[in-house]
């Protein structure tokens, strides 16, 4: 039986602790910015992830263009393929896909790394040496996430659009120039803001959730496994929640313009 009072208290506690950690991390970023650690984290987080983001977007782009052309062909609307593919890639698919793939890689990596450190007393050792783990470990990772996710996501967008071109040319027989002019009309301000704001937020989500559950790990190797699973699942869910909320917010700001 779940006690509703205890359950609510648990959730509130989590929200509070998470918020405190995040605020501390941002304060450390302002007070003394760690250049070396941040660059190192960006390298670890971003560069190694390029191949998987590449592959994920390639195949998702291929598939999406294929499905769209099947739907649009009967209406003779395949000349719009470029615009439709680019719009959905930039606004939604690119950021979400990159972030979900990254949460499997990055969130899991961060949680198990910090979880391992917590269970082997390395986090305590940091504290004992007068260093706040949020300062040394969490802040550079969060920053790296917020910088690298947009970058990866743009790379992914580009590949998704390119995959769409392949389908357009060889599947739907849309000439390349027509496809490209469609793509160009999709590069509007609302779309671009959408495409950058989302991965920025998602990067924050997937790293900070990983850090939070990593630092709070107890109970040895089994505990590390438990935290990791939890972090990856929550990160994925919150990415999708945030995706909807940001879409809604930006549509409210700009109206139904594309």
């Amino acid at each position, binding site marked *: 039986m779940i006690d509703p009072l205890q359950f609510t208290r648990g959730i509130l506690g989590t929200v509070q602790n998470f918020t405190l950690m995040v605020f501390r991390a941002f304060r450390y970023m302002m007070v003394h910015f760690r250049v070396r650690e941040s660059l190192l984290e960006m390298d670890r987080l971003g560069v190694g992830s390029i191949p998987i983001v590449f592959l994920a977007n390639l195949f998702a782009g291929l598939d999406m263009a294929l499905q769209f052309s099947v739907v649009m062909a009967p209406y003779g609307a395949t000349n719009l393929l470029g615009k439709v593919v680019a719009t959905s890639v930039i606004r939604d698919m690119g950021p979400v896909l990159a972030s979900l793939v990254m949460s499997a890689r990055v969130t899991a990596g961060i949680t198990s*790394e910090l979880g*391992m*450190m917590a269970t*082997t*007393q*390395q986090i*305590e*050792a940091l*504290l*004992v*040496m*007068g*260093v*706040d783990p949020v300062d*040394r470990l969490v802040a550079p990772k969060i920053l790296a996430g917020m910088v690298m996710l947009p970058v990866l996501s743009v790379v992914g967008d580009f590949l998704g659009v390119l995959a769409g071109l392949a389908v357009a040319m060889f599947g739907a027989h849309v000439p390349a120039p027509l496809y490209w002019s469609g793509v160009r009309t999709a590069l509007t301000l609302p779309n671009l803001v959408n495409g950058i704001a989302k991965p920025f937020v998602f990067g924050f989500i997937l790293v900070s959730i990983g850090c939070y559950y990593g630092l709070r790990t107890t109970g040895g190797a089994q505990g590390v496994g438990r935290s990791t699973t939890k972090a990856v699942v929550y990160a994925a869910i919150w990415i999708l929640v945030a995706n909807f909320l940001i879409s809604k917010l930006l549509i409210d700001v700009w109206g139904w313009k594309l």
Partner: protein
Amino acid sequence: MIRLENVTVAYGSRVILEEIDLEIPTGKTMVILGESGSGKTTILKCVLGTLHPVKGRVLANGQDISTLNESDLLRFRQRMGMVFQEGALFDSLTVGENVAFWLWEHTSLSDEEVETRVRTLLRFVGLENSIDFKPSDLSGGMRRRVAIARAMAAEDPAFMLYDEPTTGLDPFTSKSICDLMRRVQREFTTTNIVVTHDLTDAYRVGDLFTFIKDAKIIATGSRQDIEHSHDPFIKTFLSLDS
């Protein structure tokens, strides 16, 4: 000086330490003896301020630790060295980087100066040749010695805490680690707390001794005091070891 006054620690309703009073004069080594699970590590955690007692207070050189906020606590710990039960070396860093860590974080020494100091410290513990190894490539005893070097890296350590520094090591390594702890104490006049199960090592490093059992201190004093104690638990403990 480290002083625990009336310290009580509990996890939920389970009392781990009950109204502990303990005083370690400056420059002395207090050895804490007791069964596994009796709360020895817990005492160290209270001194470090990573665990807050539900009652009582911990004073270090007159400063009440529980009144410090998070950032003062971090600053306070900069003069504290702790050797963890399992070493707790940062496994993503090399031996040299582990020892350099404190210097990187709290000083603005140049890379050369840091390296010189790290080499000196590693020479002190006899591991200068392992400077580029990762902790996972070291034996248990070597790891413990790196942990000691790392704990000493603070420019002027005032307190050193050792959690079972010799457990599971061969007699030779144990002795060399005990000698090392003595040397640290002499060199820096540190106030030390050593947790151990091993009576031989306890006598090697200790000035004062404390037994804990069932959440309480049952005896504390010099070697003579302990050896002449009439407490059945202490008598058994001492006789089992010899």
